[in-house]
């Protein structure tokens, strides 16, 4: 068993996928006791276009910092999902925004669909926290970081005035992930 857990956050530039990656890596390596790397690829544009961040989490030092076989991937847009899903490993997890990603790729992995952006808009009034909500989903569904570490990492990266908003976004992620798991009949 490889001592390496690989995550990929993908969406469109400006959706906060890189920040989500940074927070995940920080939760694992600063607030939990693991080590982590976060890397990204991006084009010259700062908005739009498919964007991705990758996080590797391990109990031992990490050599290769890029994804090789992905354990968990998040896709907030169809373009990103289509472009980046190929590296998901057998038995891995794909989490998609179900309003955005209509063509679910086929593969030997588990797919969780959830209206991430719409929920952020409806329940929190801000689509900008869709990435934080996603982190809640991922933390709960994968268990790769503790929820306590995740919350600390989120709070360390957001302005004081928005702490409550982000806490709520994260909590919605935790809660809905439990429902998703129950629905899919997976303990």
């Amino acid at each position, binding site marked *: 068993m490889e001592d390496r857990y690989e995550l990929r956050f993908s969406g469109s530039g400006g959706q906060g996928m890189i920040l989500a990656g940074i927070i995940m*890596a920080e939760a694992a390596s*600063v607030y939990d006791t693991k080590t982590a790397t976060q890397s*990204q690829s991006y084009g010259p544009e700062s908005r739009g276009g498919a964007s991705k961040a990758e996080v590797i989490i391990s109990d031992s030092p990490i050599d290769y910092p890029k994804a090789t076989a992905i354990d968990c991937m998040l896709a907030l847009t169809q373009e990103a999902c289509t472009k980046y899903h190929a590296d998901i490993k057998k038995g891995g997890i794909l989490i998609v925004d179900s309003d955005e990603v209509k063509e679910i790729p086929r593969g030997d992995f588990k797919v969780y669909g959830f209206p991430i952006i719409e929920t952020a808009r409806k329940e929190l009034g801000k689509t900008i926290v869709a990435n934080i909500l996603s982190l809640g989903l991922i933390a709960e569904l994968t268990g790769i970081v503790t929820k306590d570490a995740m919350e600390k990492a989120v709070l360390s990266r957001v302005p004081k005035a928005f702490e409550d908003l982000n806490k709520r976004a994260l909590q919605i992620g935790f809660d809905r992930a439990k429902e998703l798991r129950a629905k899919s009949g997976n303990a």
Partner: protein
Amino acid sequence: MAEKRSKKLVQGNEACSEGALYAGCRFYAGYPITPSTEVAEILSARLPNVGGKFIQMEDEIASISAVIGASLAGLKSLTATSGPGFSLKQEGIGYACMAEVPCVIVNVMRGGPSTGYPTGPSQSDVMQAKWGTHGDHPVIAVTPAYVQEIFSETVRAFNLAERYRTPVLILYDEIVGHMREPVTFPLPGELEVIDRVKPTCPLEEYLPYDTEYEIAPLAAFGEGYRFHVTGLNHRADGFPTNDSKLIEKGIKRLTGKIENHREDIWKNEEYLLDDADIVVFAFGSTARSARYSVRKARENGLKAGLLRPLTLWPFPEKAVRDAVVRAKAVIVPEMNLGQIVHEVERCACGVKVEGIFRVDGEPINPRQILDVIEKYR
């Protein structure tokens, strides 16, 4: 002694900035360029808080010139750039070599030539680092591969610059420059910090290139010592000379002060090399792929090992010679069309050397290296 080391998730470029401050850097001049810009960005905020100066210059030539000037005024000085800017700085780097002015130049390598591929990684400036400026000159270049190591290698770069009165290059690529890893910041005093030797002689007796020394003490302008600095071949007092004996002696001392101390300057990581018959020689982020491949190859029953130079220049000739003793092949992956592979070949004592090259802006992945290792089963 309740002071605790802080641990933070930081970007490679941030680790470089923090390493520079730890080493005592108090001057930065530069012109921003992807993928090195964060070094400037962070130091523009941090330097004024520690009594340092930050100047965004009009271009790269002015930047390296300002760095040389600041260093001659006594401050440890840094500039950071990428490919196109590194080309522009070559003139000043040669001047700093010749005038023996300590300074540190970071080149976060991206695809070239020319403006090339700004957001993609590359290792195609490694021969430029050696020969980019004209004439026989000393070169020290360090090649960190991890974010923590960018911090410590930046400190070491400043130490080498100060000890040997010479410019030192830090070469890493977009991948390590932009990636984030947890860094444990050492407390003051934990890492060695070297300051330049200053003259103690009477003002009128000072010779900035005194041949009594291998490396003469360097006065700071403004402290009372008057001296001349030039890019021309010069006498001990710094004034130009046409004396062929002095010229030859000067150039030989200039290159010799690095060559004679290679053992002090060299630094390598040896991973599973002891019994290795397939040696991978890799530096920078490519070495991380290589390390992964070597680990996998061992799991598959192959005796693979990694030699990773942290000092690329002067080239680690001895380490390569030692590593190839039992080897049937040496594999050299690099993100260019084949540069360091020729240096390895030169030192491989006839052992087969095979390069793996990539210039599409994507990292050399472990699979590519593993496939080549497997060929030598």
